[in-house]
């Protein structure tokens, strides 16, 4: 994928995350039996991009990849069975998460995530997402779909 396409995707991700008042968002792509975060914004990005792999049979991100449906979960810490592999690695707790699928050429090739987090053991009131926030990221996913398609096209503009 051209570097300019990646930069534009990162910028779109940043703007959408800010619009819904979230600090951290990432674009994950499927890599064999895992999902790998490859483009991200926020304070956690440098710590897990291209370093973390989520198994395809675990977690909300894998659910969205399999179903092709967007999903949002709030009050995550109040429920067991949340896949906290990444939380443990980063020393945080995830309070809420939005996940939307990325489609290309008839396949769900990845997901976009956006989270509200706190430091592990934090006492502040947890934040949550709603349907309007989910809609914002669905629109972002549509933009990313078209960007990827354009970025992988062989056409070049006339000089």
């Amino acid at each position, binding site marked *: 994928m051209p570097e300019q396409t990646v930069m534009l995707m990162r910028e779109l991700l940043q703007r959408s995350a800010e619009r819904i008042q979230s600090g951290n968002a990432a674009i994950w792509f499927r890599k064999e*039996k895992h999902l790998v975060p490859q483009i991200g914004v926020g304070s956690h990005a440098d710590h897990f991009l291209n370093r973390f792999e989520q198994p395809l049979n675990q977690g909300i991100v*894998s659910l969205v990849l*399999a*179903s*092709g449906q967007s999903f949002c979960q709030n009050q995550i810490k109040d429920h067991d069975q949340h896949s906290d592999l990444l939380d443990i690695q980063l020393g945080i707790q995830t309070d809420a998460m939005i996940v939307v699928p990325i*489609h290309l050429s008839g396949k769900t090739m990845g997901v976009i995530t956006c989270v509200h987090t706190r430091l592990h053991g934090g006492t502040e009131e947890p934040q949550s997402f709603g*349907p*309007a926030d989910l809609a914002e990221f669905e*629109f972002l996913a549509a933009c990313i779909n078209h960007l990827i398609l354009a970025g992988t096209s062989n056409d070049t503009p006339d000089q």
Partner: protein
Amino acid sequence: MNTETWLTIDDAKEAIRSGDGRGLRIAILDSGIEFSHPGLKGLEVDNDLAVVEEEGHPKVVDGKGDDLFGHGTAVAGIVHRLVPAAVIGSIRVLDPNSVSRAHLIQEGLRTAARLGYNIVHCSFNAPARQSDTLIYQNLIESFYLRHTHLVAAGSHSLYCTREWPAHFPTVVSVGAHPENEEGLHLTPVKSLVEFASCGSEVEALWPGGGTRQIVGAPFAAARVTAMLAKLLGSHPGLHPLTAKAVLRQVAE
């Protein structure tokens, strides 16, 4: 002589208000259902099946009460809560290890048709590959001819890629209402996902006997599946297009 069922808007609203889904069989095509969940107590279960991949081909096997992701149990919980007298069957078509989802989904739809369900609820969306379009079209048309009602979750995003089965006009396609409004609404923009309902569930049933707070189009679609079941419970002969037209009339 035309003997097809018709009903007035007032009849439809009354059915949606008071119906309990009695006499209806609903298939939920999703990640499986944990039928042992305490929140599904009293549910009459019809079939528990899974479509798996064996040597590259889809095969229908026993679902074993497994929900691979949690999704299907949440959807079943909403439907059962709203239409407690309806019979529910599970056909698991979502498999994390499957390379291609489309052929599992197609086999799941064929199985639901073969088992004669009144309503088939699809919580997923498969990106519309050209190679699959004719297969989906044939399946959707067979549902239409059998008078089997299909409800599918979909996105209201104007720029999303085409998705099956939500983007077929004979399907009742539902997205999450952006302001979380309960009841049934028409999408304000021109979209093949014509309906919207509340997609938030504060205590959605989740595998392991617990609950989660979740938001998504499948949970809005579950509410509309229940509304359709209430309609069909009092007017069993309703044609799919008539039912969809009635839903459009009662929507706000």
